[in-house]
């Protein structure tokens, strides 16, 4: 039986958090990933009371009565609503055992292109939510650690992290970022592009969850050998009545092409920034794709076709970032030099 004192020590374990636009993952020191939930919070619009967080709140998106609002407090990797983000972080930390008496050290993964103001907003939100100390680490660096790339060696490791709101490409060697390119475009922009296309070309309105389902069902960035069409149900903009249309994979590719091109262009820009000595390593070692956006069918082929560099998928694309940050929290003293701001 666990005594209260032992339980308190157990609960005060340090945490690594991947605070993503789409999902929030929490790694607890010595225990591994203990939480993986959508970054969504549902609130009572009238009282401001939190009704649900995570998966439960995600299921409410677009399906709530007037007095409930289900929102994503992060957009493009940045906090759009500080107060709601703080409440969401506090509730998520409570779920993994953090209280006002057990204040752990926290490492949070953030986009590398984050501004000083956004950086402070994230650390303040974590501290107010119960963290004793909050440090930040760049997502591509954490992703490279979590994807098991040999970043301790003097060789070029290239990682492409495509999240919900940001896409970041980094060249890493000897534990440091050599070249970096980030764009505030991610898989939510792909969903939005599908929504806009259906509205414009078929005259029906669909929700963001439906757009995401279309992307996962028939979306691709490059023609694939086995493709099928999808029946899409939405609301006719002219009549207001429910309507069904058939969407082809070619249409979806056309709809999302601008977003995909933007991601591919940022990868090319990062390649062009890399020193020649490291560039040659990419031809042999390839580039590694992580993040939920990297799961889009044909994206690896599309990047490979346009860069002529092999693209490989991490074995743990969704968890790579939090695993990397988890490794940093496990070796906090040795790796604290990798925190944002520590190298300046």
């Amino acid at each position: 039986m666990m005594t209260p004192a032992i339980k308190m020590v157990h609960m005060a374990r340090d945490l690594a958090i991947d605070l993503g636009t789409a999902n929030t993952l929490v790694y607890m020191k010595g225990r591994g990933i203990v939480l993986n939930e959508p970054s969504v919070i549902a609130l009572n619009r009238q009282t401001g009371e939190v009704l649900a967080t995570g998966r439960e709140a995600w299921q409410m998106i677009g399906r709530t009565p007037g007095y409930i609002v289900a929102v994503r407090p992060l957009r493009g990797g940045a906090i759009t609503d500080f107060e709601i983000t703080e409440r969401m972080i506090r509730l998520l930390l409570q779920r993994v055992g953090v209280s006002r008496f057990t204040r752990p050290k926290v490492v949070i993964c953030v986009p590398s292109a984050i501004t000083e103001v956004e950086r402070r907003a994230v650390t303040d939100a974590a501290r107010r939510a119960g963290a004793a100390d909050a440090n930040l680490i760049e997502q591509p660096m954490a992703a490279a650690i979590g994807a098991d790339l040999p970043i301790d060696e003097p060789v070029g490791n290239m990682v492409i992290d495509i999240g919900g709101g940001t896409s970041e490409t980094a060249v890493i060697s000897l534990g440091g970022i050599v070249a970096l390119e980030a764009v505030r475009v991610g898989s939510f922009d792909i969903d939005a592009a599908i929504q806009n296309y259906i509205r414009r070309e078929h005259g029906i309105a669909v929700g963001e969850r439906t757009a995401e389902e279309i992307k996962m069902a028939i979306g691709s960035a490059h023609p694939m050998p086995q493709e099928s069409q999808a029946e899409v149900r939405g609301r006719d903009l002219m009549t207001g009545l429910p309507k069904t249309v058939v969407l082809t994979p070619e249409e979806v590719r056309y709809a999302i092409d601008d977003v995909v091109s933007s991601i591919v262009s940022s990868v090319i820009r990062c390649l062009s920034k890399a020193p020649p000595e490291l560039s040659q390593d990419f031809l042999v070692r390839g580039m590694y794709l992580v993040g939920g956006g990297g799961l889009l069918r044909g994206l690896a082929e599309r990047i490979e076709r346009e860069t002529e560099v092999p693209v490989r998928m991490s074995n743990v694309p969704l968890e790579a970032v939090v695993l990397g940050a988890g490794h940093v929290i496990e070796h906090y003293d040795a790796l604290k030099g990798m925190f944002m701001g520590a190298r300046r």
Partner: protein
Amino acid sequence: MRLLATVVIAAAVVVLILVIVLRSRGASDGVDSFRRQIDALSPEARRPVIDQMYGKGEHNEPRIEPHIDPRPADADNSDARGESTDDDASDQDGAHGA
């Protein structure tokens, strides 16, 4: 006067020695901390964390193109990647393979 000069010189020597010692220590600290950081990033150090997700023997061998869903063309797309859309199909908005 001579005593004062001696004290000043002695103090200067002590300060000089301190500066030299601290500088050499700072330099070795930099080497040590960099070495510690590189060691902590080695595959051996990362193994316990990575092992939680990867199967044994799969290190540094990420699969190529695992995101390509090999389902047949006539498969029900709504079940792809485990995202069931049964609920949504009956709702106003929804998408499923045709």
